[in-house]
């Protein structure tokens, strides 16, 4: 099984001081999949990605990229892995062409056509200095530099952060084109749920440094459900619903989001006195937001009810 995984982690843990940021993470990302990593700010996404990339030492546990220990990646291993850092760091004193030269000479494989087409897609003049580029254009250069090295595994840390809709569209198109070429694995961290839904086929959700979802996007959609109940507001009994992800009030009714609902779930909802029980359609975005809201006290139904 491990051989089928492009990324795997076992008990991956990271503390900063005595505060745990990533807590005993076990994950596997199959080769050839496009996986979205979701979570609130501070959930531990970037820390996880940095540990996977071998740029941060885990406190405990271990991880592998393309079958190699993340902490022992050689230059050859790194040539097979593409990585864009959060914020699209580039040397601002370089021109786009100088950046390309620098990247080309430090990676053994280089697809010039890929670089040129990506740069064109973002409307960038290769003679421009990096410092004068817009945020979207910097993202384009960053992506072009990463993709032109023809990585087998691509790890992107929030590549769409702060991009305008046109740049986001260009980013998504570029990623889709890249993924369609051969057996490539992508792990993409983002807050943009629409983009993720469009691009990925697997989803990971992190809450407080823990992984709570790791499945295909279809499986995720199938296993999460939303229900509208009529129960007294602020009822503590609602917590008794098995697999309750999140609950909120809307127009006098309580909307609950439940994972892996079955007959027992419906029976539990009936037991707490729901007069009418209505299953609602739920989008991918709403399902993810339910998970993320669950971890944020200010948005939490439980906080409002004093739970």
């Amino acid at each position: 099984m491990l051989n089928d995984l492009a990324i795997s982690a076992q008990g991956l843990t990271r503390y900063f001081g005595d505060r745990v940021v990533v807590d005993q993470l076990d994950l596997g990302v199959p080769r050839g999949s496009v996986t979205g990593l979701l979570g609130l700010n501070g959930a531990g996404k970037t820390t996880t990605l940095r540990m996977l990339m071998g740029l941060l030492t885990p406190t405990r546990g271990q991880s592998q990229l393309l079958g190699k220990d993340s902490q022992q990646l050689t230059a050859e291993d790194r040539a097979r892995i593409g990585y864009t850092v959060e914020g699209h760091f580039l040397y601002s004193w370089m021109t786009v062409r100088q950046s390309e030269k620098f990247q080309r000479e430090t990676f053994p494989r280089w697809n010039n056509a890929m670089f040129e087409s990506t740069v064109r897609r973002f409307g960038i003049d290769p003679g421009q200095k990096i410092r004068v580029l817009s945020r979207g254009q910097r993202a384009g250069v960053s992506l072009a530099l990463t993709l032109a090295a023809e990585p087998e595994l691509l790890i992107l840390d929030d590549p769409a952060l702060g991009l305008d809709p046109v740049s986001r569209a260009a980013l998504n198109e570029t990623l889709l084109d890249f993924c369609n070429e051969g057996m490539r694995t992508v792990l993409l961290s983002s807050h943009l749920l629409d983009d993720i839904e469009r691009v990925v086929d697997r989803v990971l959700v992190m809450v407080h440094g823990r992984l709570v979802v790791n499945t295909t996007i279809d499986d995720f959609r199938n296993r999460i459900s939303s229900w509208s109940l009529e129960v007294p507001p602020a009822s503590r009994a609602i917590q008794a619903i098995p697999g309750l992800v999140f609950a909120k009030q809307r127009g006098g009714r309580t909307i609950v989001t439940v994972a892996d609902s079955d007959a027992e779930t419906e029976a539990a909802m009936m037991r707490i006195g729901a007069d009418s029980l209505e299953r609602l359609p739920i989008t991918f975005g709403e399902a993810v937001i339910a998970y993320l809201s669950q971890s944020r006290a200010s948005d939490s139904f439980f906080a409002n009810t004093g739970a």
Partner: protein
Amino acid sequence: MRTLIEKELRENLRWLWVGLALIGSLVWYATPKTLVANGESAETLIASPMLLGASLFALGLGVMQSFADLRTASRSFLFHRSVSIGSIFYSKLISGAILYFAAVGIPLCLVAIWFAAQGLDYLPVRPIQVYPAAVVALACFGFHPAAMLMLARSGKWFGTKLLPLFFVIPIVAIGGITINTILHGPALHVLIVGLILLGDLILVAAAKHAWVHSVADEGSFPKQPVNLALKLTLSIAAVVFVMFSFQVVAAFGGGWLPAETSSVEEDYAIDAEGNLWWVKSKRTRTEPWLAFISGDRLQKDELPDARRELPKKLQLGHLGKLTWVGTAKRCFAGEMAWYSKDLASYFDSRGNVLLYDRTLTPPLQARITRDGAPFAGDPRSSGSEDMFFYDKSGPSFWIDPIGAYRILSPSLKVETLLELPIQAKGSETRHTSNDQGTNKVQTQEQITILSDGKLHVYRLTDKDGNEWFPDFGRGKSEFKIREIAVSPPLPPSDWKDIRYHFTDDSKFTVVLTGRRPCFLTYDSKSDTHWTVTSFRNPNKKISDDLGSLLFSVLPLLFSIVVAVSIGSDLLLSGTSLPTIDSFKCFLQDEYGYVILGTVVLLFSMIGAYFACQRRMLSRSETIRWCCWTVLLGVATPIAVLAIYTRPACVRCTGCEKKRRIDLRKCEHCGCEWERTAPMGIEIFDDGFSKSKEQQLTPELTR
């Protein structure tokens, strides 16, 4: 790596201009441009600002190169590519070296060219005199890898973060030796440069280890063991830090120290009767001259005790000392001798004497040679400054290893007085009451030469044969040299340290300490002339209260380095090395400091033990560090705290004790980490959720 070096050069080129401006202006400001009375030699003048400028530039460059690429985003971008982190480190080091040596090399080359263009006509300078500054610059480059190490390793800015910089101080000190040894043979310079490069290599190895293994730790307990270079660097840096701190306290707060800051010397003295004494003299900070405090008369075959009370009304005087010609230091420093406000002589390292008059253009007035041949040595460099007097109308006298000469004025021709091999020479100032019988004294110069087992004593006399006194004699047109020559009846192979005292022309004493220590008394009026009395050689001891205090509390490593240095100096100067007797004597006299040193050592061991406990080191490592305390002294706890990182701890759910977060099992109860209870909302597909337990591998255990 070429690409990385190009990137670094392009990125940091702006600092080259800063470095050129800083070092160039400092060096040019310090470069001698005119003859300055009491001015230091060119190599000292240039090396000092080079030390400041090059240290600052190397440190700044290392910080800028590291800081920019160690921030999270830039580090991730730079480190994730198909090159090793080691290559990235070396590219920074090499590009830093290129920029650094350009910034220090260009000003030095320009100064050397300027020296060559000036020539000796204007200033006694030669291009070679920039060499010590170049060696100092080479040593100061150590601040570059030290800065890279400083930024890559964990540590607090108000803790041990800055410690690696202290490792560079001894490297720079070694480089500074070249200032006084510029004219020594190549072997010494190869050794100096070799030691500098060795120090830099250790620093580079330590810095590389930190870049490759420590940067990703970001302050957490390191997974990789600390390498030897890093241990060595931080241990030596801790020792230097302790020494530096004591120096600062001694320099600025000597009064706070419990010991009286005085120094005590033991040496020979002679009374008015011509009897020899072994006396203890004291010098204090406020009274810097030697005052006799106790002593014992030298008796045949007896060991004198310098602690005995001296008889009252005893008049004692010091003995002269012969300096071995062969041990004369060769250097440029201090070779300018000023005879008046405007007139100076300079002993050219090629063996010529250059006379400068700074009121004339060009200032160089004469090159004095020995009939066209260079002099064989410079007496000024052996500490015999009084041997060469020059006045346009007065006498000049010169000694080198192959003869004694006088320089005739105003022709500046050289007349050879003696043509014989000279092994040792010494000058002595005799004090004589003046005609009025008051306390005012005249000084009379006399020069003693050892040649082929014979002592020659020269005194200047005027044309009537009366002794000539420089204080009164200036302006006299003629003089003679009166020679007294005697041969002590012992083979020269027995002579090591030669002390002498002339009571008058017919009576004097020579003390020879060598294989058979003895003193010889010469009396021309007796039948035998010479009386030889052997005695047991008392060991010369110089102790300093402050020095003893510092030695007793400073690391033994430092004491060993100093002892080796003193030992080599003693060997070179022909003085006997300390013996078991002298060690016993030391223990007897300085037991207070021995006790203090022992107490300090014990406290250092306790400190090292607690430092090891705080860093949670194993029992064997704790024992090893406690043993190292013998060598590193009070620096050991600092070294332990700097080398190791303290692992964070949380409370164990099994035993309630604090357990290390980096270990899989609790070190107290063996309990594994509890898995956080499922929230009941997890969605995992079969392939990965169910396999996760099986995927945990034993390698998780450190």
